[in-house]
Structures are given as structure tokens and as C-alpha cells.
């Protein structure tokens, strides 16, 4: 298969590297809005990656560009019958991409939105947890970290904006930076404050768990971010080498008894995103996933994906209370 990658930032490069190492991938076609980026990637990854010509139609398109660019690109490729994966974590992108479902169904192809570390892998673990419960009542996620410098800035913006969450079965506003809560992530990250913001999981989880009454998402912010908010500052405040993590907690009942399951992943967000995309790529190209536009956890079984991710080095953990 030939996979087209639109956007070669930190996440795009990681996706390219992971795809090249995936059996069945003949070539990775790449394009970037930044001059010289494709040549740089080619020098690092070899001839398996090459510039994406204007008239080339790949077997799969992975959108790794900046948030806000994904909907137009997906709208172009779906009518060609090409499956599309978007790694955007922006709620506006995800909502607009899911609205493309009729186009994807009409052309008998699949669009997966929100395929990243959180959302994406967090949704797969949430569904894995939910499979062990009779009824799902409440889900919450907290995340720290981001893919690269662009993702850091974007994540910072999302956490300063108002989002939505589900409480008692009703959508309510989640003010950016509000409801600070101490959360324990796997070491070496440890305990971090997380706050609400304009995050995507509640939107995707509502489609997965329509009977759940409470859906909440939080993200970690640095102290400097809490002081300066959206005031622009020079340079990235994080780099690709920084590990990220998310913790997802699912509450429900088993046999009428209240049960709570907690899962986490500690990894570099860009690396985990790349492993997830590479795991899904063969399924999308072979057409084994349902046509339409979906969140990733809506159309894949969690266990095979988690096993393949573990094989690729992305391992989940569960919290055992003492």
C-alpha cells in the first residue's frame, strides 16, 4: 500500500517512520507546507519516503497538518474513495470531520477522526474498560504532554478555551482552566494538576456510550501557562523528548455493584499516535472497517489494537488500589 501523509511536523515524521516499518507499506508519500521539510525527512528515513506528487492518489491519507486544515483535505480525498485518518485533537475539527459521514458512506470509504494519543488511544482504552462493565455511568480523562512544539501551543490554546462536558446527562459549559484537580500519572510524571478546557473526548464518548451521564476531560497546564494564559511567548515550552501520559477512569456497574476501572498510557504522544495510525492503516486499506466517519473506538475492537500497540512498544497500565 501507498500512504500519503499531509503535514510533516513532529507527529507527521513519527507516523512516516512507523509506517515505513510496517509490513505491506510500499511507499510513504509526504507533503508539507514548510519548504524543505520533505527533503529533510527523506534524508532521515530513506527512499521509502518521497514527495507526494499532485496527481498521485494513495491508498490511504493521514492528515497530520495543523488543526483547521483537516476538514478541507478530508473533503477532497473522500470522494476519491480513499480512506482518511485525522490526528487532530481539536473539537472543531473532529465535529466537522464526523459531519462528513454521508460523503464517506456514499463513496464506500472510511474516515477516522481524533486518532491521536488523547483522544484516540484514550478512547480505545475507555472502550476496553467499558467492555468489562454491565453499564457505563461516568468517564473522565486527564492528559499531560503534547506531540511537538506546534501541538504544545495548540493544546495550551484548547485549555484556555471553554469546552463542553456532560453532567447528569446534560451538556454544560466547561470553562477553560477551571476545576483544577490533582491527578496521578505513571512515573516519572507523577502527580500533576489538570484543568478543564476545550477537549474532544466528551464528544467522542457520547457516541460510544450514549447512556453515560457524566463525561469529563482535563489537561495539564504549566504554572507559567496558568499565569500568562494566551499571551504569546517565544519558543516552545516542551519538546518531542518529553514523555506524555493520560489516565482514563471509567465508572459503572457489574452485577449491580459499582465498579471503577483506571487505565493509563505513558509514552511520547507523537510516538504513540504514530503506532496507532500504523496499526489502523492495514485495516483501512483492506476495507475491513465500516464505511462512514467515526471515532476510532467506534469501529475497532480494543484488544487486537492494544496487543499490536504493545508489540510496537506502546504499553497500557492499570491502576491497582493498595
Amino acid at each position, binding site marked *: 500500500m501507498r500512504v500519503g501523509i499531509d503535514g510533516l511536523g513532529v507527529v507527521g515524521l513519527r507516523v512516516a517512520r512507523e509506517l515505513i516499518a510496517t509490513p505491506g507499506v510500499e511507499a510513504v508519500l509526504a507533503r508539507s507546507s514548510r519548504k524543505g521539510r520533505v527533503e529533510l525527512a527523506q534524508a532521515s528515513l530513506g527512499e521509502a519516503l518521497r514527495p507526494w506528487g499532485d496527481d498521485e492518489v494513495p491508498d490511504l491519507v493521514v492528515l497530520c497538518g495543523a488543526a483547521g486544515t483537516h476538514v478541507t483535505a478530508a473533503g477532497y480525498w473522500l470522494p476519491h474513495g480513499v480512506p482518511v485518518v485525522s490526528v487532530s485533537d481539536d473539537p472543531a475539527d473532529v465535529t466537522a470531520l464526523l459531519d462528513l459521514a454521508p460523503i464517506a458512506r456514499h463513496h464506500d470509504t472510511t474516515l477516522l477522526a481524533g486518532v491521536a494519543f488523547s483522544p484516540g488511544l484514550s478512547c480505545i482504552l475507555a472502550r476496553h474498560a467499558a467492555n468489562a462493565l454491565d453499564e457505563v455511568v461516568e468517564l473522565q480523562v486527564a492528559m499531560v504532554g503534547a506531540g511537538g512544539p506546534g501541538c504544545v501551543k495548540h493544546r495550551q490554546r484548547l485549555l484556555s478555551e471553554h469546552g463542553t462536558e456532560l453532567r447528569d446527562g446534560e451538556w454544560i459549559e466547561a470553562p477553560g482552566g477551571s476545576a483544577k484537580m490533582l491527578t496521578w500519572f*505513571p512515573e516519572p510524571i507523577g502527580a500533576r494538576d489538570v484543568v478543564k478546557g476545550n477537549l474532544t473526548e466528551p464528544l467522542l464518548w457520547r457516541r460510544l456510550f450514549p447512556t453515560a451521564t457524566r463525561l469529563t476531560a482535563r489537561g495539564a497546564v504549566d504554572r507559567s501557562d*496558568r499565569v500568562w494564559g494566551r499571551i504569546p511567548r517565544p519558543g516552545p515550552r516542551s519538546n518531542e523528548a518529553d514523555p506524555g501520559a493520560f489516565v482514563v477512569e471509567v465508572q459503572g456497574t457489574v452485577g449491580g455493584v459499582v465498579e471503577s476501572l483506571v487505565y493509563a498510557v505513558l509514552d511520547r504522544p507523537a510516538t504513540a499516535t504514530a503506532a496507532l495510525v500504523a496499526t489502523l492503516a492495514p485495516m483501512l486499506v483492506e476495507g475491513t472497517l465500516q464505511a462512514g466517519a467515526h471515532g476510532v473506538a467506534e469501529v475497532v475492537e480494543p484488544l487486537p489494537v492494544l496487543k499490536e500497540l504493545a508489540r510496537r512498544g506502546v504499553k497500557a497500565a492499570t491502576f*491497582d488500589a493498595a
Partner: protein
Amino acid sequence: MRAVRRAVMALGLAGLVGAVLRLRGTGGTPPQQQGGWRELSGDDLR
């Protein structure tokens, strides 16, 4: 002029107190974590 100086002083103090509260919070000593993380493997993934 005196009123303006007082207003500026009051705003400055309010900002200072606000900044301290925003940075320090009011939560006191956080609770300690009980339990620990265990990697999913074997039976967890069947």
C-alpha cells in the same frame, strides 16, 4: 490625584494577591496516592 494613586495601589495589591492565589492555590497538602500502576499483559489482553 490622591484618589487615583489609591485606586492604582488597590488594583496593584489586588493583582498581587490574585497572582499568589493563582499560583499557590488553596488546597494545602495533597493527599498521598494509594496503590500503584501495573502494566497490562497476559490475561489483561485476552
